[in-house]
């Protein structure tokens, strides 16, 4: 592309993680011990734990720190992908390429969507473009000021009032004081929290806080806006507001990079879509054909065998949906029960792990998430080699559509799953109740009548 009016130009961008580089709580003592082991290899043979000592977390994560909230904890926020794909990207010496030779140009004023499975490298790409982390190789050139809507509410302080947080958040995002002051009313108005602007944010409902945070970020005067999964922050009305805002942003000649699993939103907003897979660009072109190819590819891929975290003590013994082993499409009437049963074992007795389930509509809308324990601490101290999990839904009352879910077993807080089934089961819900809105998610049982009175 010889267009001279580019806003962003990425050339052969690559990012490598070393396995174990993201070890949590890496203490000096461990490092010293490792160094000693290297000096006396015979010691290492005797002392090295059976799981191997260099298998730390494999992949970069969004939210692995202890601050993760109860909601995000139930999500599958860790970037994971099927084992074969991981292996394919493992270089020698335990290297892992989250991005490999990615190149593209984006002209000014274009709105480009980035799609791809979890772990495809989308978030890594945005993190490099926002300078949070550095690329291992390659370069990117950005013309103009960059604003990012990566994690809504970053830096919000619960003790401060809404007004104070607007200034704090704005400054963190790179706005000058006068700029914030000039836009203050607009921001508050957009968020719809005018009545509570002098109330501490800790008294806000989570929806209000997120709306305020989004409003600050959306009013950033950036020529290039990087947006990561923020459209699903509020109710339907607020989402419409956001989409409208994004449209005006694009019309103003600003450039937008939108990362989303919400294919509906991507289709609505973007003319061009880049599909990332395994750290590389699979397709880059007009929206509709690329999204179609992507959906096809997702359908074809069957992840029947789970992804096991390297070094994890657990192995999956059984996983059944409504009594049938995985691997079949399950048809479900909207009001029928859904029963998920998972059995896992480990060589040594372990404390109680947890089974999480995240349920999505086929377009990526998250319908709900739940788990066998509320927190990972809810543990009676029992240890066992074999754990059996059951999640029983008496009825789901889903509107007719296609759904799938992810299942994960984990034993620590860091968000990494020991065993993970991605998109394990495609469900087709049908219903006997006549539905009016085709895009609705739920069809709750209703006793309806209309009488002439």
């Amino acid at each position, binding site marked *: 592309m010889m267009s001279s009016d580019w806003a962003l130009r990425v050339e052969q961008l690559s990012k490598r*993680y070393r396995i174990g*580089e*993201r*070890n949590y*709580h*890496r*203490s*000096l*003592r461990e*490092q010293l011990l490792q160094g000693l082991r290297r000096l006396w290899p015979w010691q290492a043979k005797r002392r090295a734990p059976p799981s191997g000592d260099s298998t730390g977390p494999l992949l*970069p994560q969004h939210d692995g*720190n202890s*601050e993760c909230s109860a909601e995000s904890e139930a999500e599958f926020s860790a970037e994971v992908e099927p084992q074969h794909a991981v292996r394919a990207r493992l270089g020698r010496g335990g290297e892992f390429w989250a991005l490999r030779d990615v190149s593209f140009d984006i002209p000014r004023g274009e709105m480009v969507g980035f799609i791809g499975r979890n772990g495809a490298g989308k978030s890594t790409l945005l*993190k*490099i*473009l*926002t*300078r*949070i*982390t*550095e*690329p*291992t*190789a*390659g*370069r*990117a*050139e*950005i*013309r*103009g*000021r*960059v604003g*990012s809507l*990566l*994690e809504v509410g*970053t*830096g919000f*302080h619960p*003790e*401060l009032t809404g007004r*104070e947080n607007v*200034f*704090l958040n704005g*400054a*963190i*995002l*790179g706005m*000058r*004081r006068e700029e914030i002051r000039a836009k203050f009313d607009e921001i508050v108005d957009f968020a719809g929290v005018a009545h509570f602007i002098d109330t501490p944010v800790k008294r806000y409902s989570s929806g209000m806080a997120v709306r305020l945070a989004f409003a600050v970020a959306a009013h950033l005067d950036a*020529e290039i806006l990087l947006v990561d999964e923020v459209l699903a922050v509020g109710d339907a009305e607020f989402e419409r507001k956001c989409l409208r805002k994004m449209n005006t942003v694009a019309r103003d000649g600003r450039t937008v990079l939108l990362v989303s699993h919400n294919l509906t939103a991507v289709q609505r907003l973007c003319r061009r879509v880049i599909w990332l897979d395994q750290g590389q660009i699979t397709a880059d072109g007009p929206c509709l054909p690329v999204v179609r190819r992507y959906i096809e590819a997702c359908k074809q891929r069957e992840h029947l065998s789970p992804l096991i975290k390297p070094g994890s003590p657990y192995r999956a013994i059984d996983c059944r949906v409504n009594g049938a082993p995985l691997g079949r499409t399950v048809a479900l009437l909207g009001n029928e029960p859904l029963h998920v049963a998972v059995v896992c074992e480990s060589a040594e007795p372990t404390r109680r792990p947890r089974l999480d389930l995240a349920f999505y509509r086929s377009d990526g809308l998250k319908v709900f998430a739940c788990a066998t324990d509320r927190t990972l601490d809810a543990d009676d101290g029992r240890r066992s080699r074999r754990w059996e999990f059951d999640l029983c839904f008496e009825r789901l009352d889903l509107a007719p559509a296609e759904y799938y879910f992810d299942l994960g077993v984990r034993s620590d807080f860091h968000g990494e799953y020991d065993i993970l089934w991605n998109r394990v089961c495609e469900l087709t819900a049908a219903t006997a109740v006549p539905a009016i809105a085709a895009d609705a998610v739920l069809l709750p049982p209703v006793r309806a009548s209309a009488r002439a009175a």
Partner: protein
Amino acid sequence: MSRDVTVIRSGRGWQPLELAELWRYRTLLWVFLLRDLKTSYKQTVLGPLWAVLPPLLTTALFTLVFGVLLGRGNEPSAPGVPYALSTLCALLPWRLFAGCLTGIGNSLANNQSLLTKIYFPRMIFPLSAMLMPLLDAAVTFVLLIGLMLWYGIAPGVTLLAAPAFIGLALAAALALGLWFAPLSATYRDLGMAVPYLLNIALYLSPVIYAAASLQRALPDWAVTIYWLNPMACAIEGMRWSFFNSAPLPWGSVAGGAGLVFALLVGGAFFFRRMERSIVDVI
């Protein structure tokens, strides 16, 4: 509309300090100070008294233990200056140093959520950790002047040099902190070690005693080594500027300041070098 081109690429080895970029983000320092100010006394009973009480209570304690119970042998640095006054004067730079160093050391580890989600010059974190201790020091300064007047001692013209020694204590904390912060983000051990090391350093610095009393007790070479401690220079410098009695060993003070400067420049480059990989390991 600005059309500056930002180039992102992998930087290897030592990087320039980019002080100009740091300056562009100065609003952030101000905003962080306001945040800390507004939140630090929330849900406390004593409120801002927390800025006043600790230096006074520590002074009272030290005076009781070292000035009264243990008696003589702990001469104040200046003849005619009460022990309590001399100690409060020493506590000003000392508490500033200790507060800053603790804050800076934990600044990266404590701001993990910001660090991994948004970019601004990482140097902002250690710098903003120095603001609240600095404010504390300002309160202590007022207390100290008040106590002096109460004792009937008028500050002399040397008081004008006090900011230089406060600056030395700040620079010493920043110099060490810039080395500590990236390391303690990776190795959490350091976060635990810093308070302990500070405890030891309290006794290695002339806070509860005066450097002059050491000069009588130690051989010359040991005194020379002692003065390499930049905090010895800062504290004795404070006493000199407030009470102007004992002359300062200017050669040693210059040496201490030089050491701080070298550590500071080295620390800044070290920090820049480490900050690039911190997101991936924190």
